[in-house]
């Protein structure tokens, strides 16, 4: 298992390099000019100097290698310094955002908590809803609960989050006035009152994303339970006189969770993509919103770094899912 993990980790390196190159080339090919949004009164020679100062004068491979060095060497070193208070020394150039002229990694660190709170919470809630629904609908297949659950999950992943989001805003903020329609990220939790407000403003975005996530996971849970409920070991367990509860919730559930756990792991990076839209609906200024404004502003270093981080997440969680599968299911060992 360990050799398998190491092999996969090593294999991930060329993939990541290829992806970073693809993203870089794509951004470079594009006819986008970072100085296009500057005032027209700037004379052409000054404009050219601004372009030079952004590093646009260098040949493409130098810019790519420079970005690689900044991202893979300088930024990790910097993080080590900050976390452990070390002084490694040396003058390190960081990946700078063209819009704000501040390091991209700092921007990401600022935006991360909002995204993690909303998105992470919605994923947890989604999983917690999905598992019981999946279990019950599989156990009572074709009952009314199953029919309703299947319909709701079908609706859940057919209706895009940008419509459900807008819909809940219309219902709960415009008509009923229960929750604020805009997520206030400057809000700080200091006492009970502000904590309640935080809960209130989180309910809608979390519920919208959770519905979407729960829809997919509950389908998997149901299918996986159905696969296991007809297995011989279930009959054996019943024949030995075990209580139905034990049979379903211990024997069947444990085995059915194996594929579901990997699906949950695989879904983690996708929720960041989905969060881009939800953040836009509820005006959460998280990572998704940072990506959108940097795309609109032609801020290539930020876009490059953020997109690459998304790619790293995808590969990492693919790996986690595969390793988990091997760890949880002794029938599948890769070596």
């Amino acid at each position: 298992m360990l050799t398998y993990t190491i092999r996969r980790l090593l294999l991930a390196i060329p993939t990541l390099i290829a992806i970073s190159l693809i993203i870089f080339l794509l951004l470079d090919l594009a006819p986008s000019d970072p100085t296009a949004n500057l005032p027209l009164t700037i004379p052409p020679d000054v404009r050219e100097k601004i372009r030079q100062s952004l590093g646009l004068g260098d040949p493409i491979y130098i810019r790519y290698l420079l970005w690689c060095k900044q991202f893979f060497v300088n930024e990790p070193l910097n993080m080590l310094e900050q976390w452990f208070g070390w002084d490694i020394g040396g003058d390190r150039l960081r990946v700078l955002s063209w819009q704000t002229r501040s390091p991209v990694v700092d921007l990401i660190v600022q935006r991360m908590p909002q995204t993690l709170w909303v998105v992470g919470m919605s994923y947890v809630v989604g999983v917690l809803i999905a598992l019981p629904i999946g279990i019950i609908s599989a156990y009572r297949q074709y009952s009314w609960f199953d029919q309703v659950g299947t319909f709701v999950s079908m609706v859940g992943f057919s209706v895009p989050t940008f419509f459900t989001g807008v819909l809940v805003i219309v219902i709960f903020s415009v008509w009923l006035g229960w929750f604020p329609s805009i997520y206030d990220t400057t809000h700080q939790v200091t006492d009970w009152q502000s904590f309640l407000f935080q809960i209130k403003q989180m309910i809608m975005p979390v519920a919208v994303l959770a519905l979407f996530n729960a829809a997919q996971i509950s389908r998997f849970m149901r299918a996986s339970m159905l696969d296991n409920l007809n297995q011989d070991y279930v009959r054996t367990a019943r024949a030995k006189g075990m209580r139905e509860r034990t049979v379903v919730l211990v024997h069947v559930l444990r085995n059915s969770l194996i594929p579901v756990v990997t699906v949950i792991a695989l879904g983690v990076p996708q929720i960041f993509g989905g969060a881009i839209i939800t953040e836009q609906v509820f005006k959460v200024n998280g990572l998704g919103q940072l990506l959108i404004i940097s795309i609109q502003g032609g801020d290539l270093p930020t876009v490059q770094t953020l997109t690459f981080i998304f790619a790293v997440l995808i590969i990492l969680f693919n790996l986690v899912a595969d390793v988990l599968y091997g760890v949880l299911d002794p029938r599948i060992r890769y070596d």
Partner: protein
Amino acid sequence: MTDIAPESLAEARPPQSQWRNVWDQFKTHRGAVWGMGFFIFVVLAVTLGPYLWTIDAQYIDIRARNQGPNLSHPLGTDQLGRDTLARVLQGGQVSMAVGITAMALSLILGALIGVVAGYFKRLDGVLMRLTDLFLALPLLPLLLVIIMLFRDTLRAAFGPETGIFMLIVFVIGITSWMQTARIVRGDVLALKEREFVIASRSIGTPARRMILRHILPNVLSPITVSATLGIANAIITESALSFLGLGFPSDFPTWGRLLFDSTDYLQQYPERVLWPGLAISLTVLSVNYIGDGLRDALDPRIRGR
């Protein structure tokens, strides 16, 4: 059942074509039939609708702006007095066209790569690594980046509407073929070991005819199922892009764009987001139900039970 002679079997049940059987099974899935009905309705509405509801979607009647549903404007009007029903119909045309074309593109790519990877052993490794690479790309951010960066060039080259249409269809197509390719490859690998393929190869059938005559017809069912899912995916992606303000221009409505424009007036006219949103959701829901029904109907293990 083995003792029944073939003649009596033939008498008991008249021979039916495979597609007839599929249709019979499909009919038993109630959601799928409803979905099919609704999908046909939407397609007819967006293609024939503009001939029946003749108000021009671009016609600005500023005196009739911000109206609620009434007789002359069944779904109301927007902030410039444009008729919402006409805009939803026209937007549907674009959304459906994008959905179907992008699906066709991704299907052709996916089937081609899947068949080639499954059939030619030498290309398998390369193509599957390519598929894995595409699967590891963060698609939504990349879509946004591509559209943001290339839309001005294409707009200048092909005009504002055609340029954006081609760009969106192209990017959705090339970022959604991977699942189809994987499924098709798996099926082709299994088919290659079947007797009829081996027999056909033993009489020297060339690869091209082998693929077209023997392999492709047999992988048609997974392709059909992923076609329906592809339409749903393409419609959602296009609306998401339009919703983020990176799709079609505002005077060229699509469902996502209409939804995006209506959210600005959410406080005053909350009902306005309903129509495009419902159109997207119901269409995608119906397509997903069709896919569900097709999957059951095309699976010979379920069919005939």
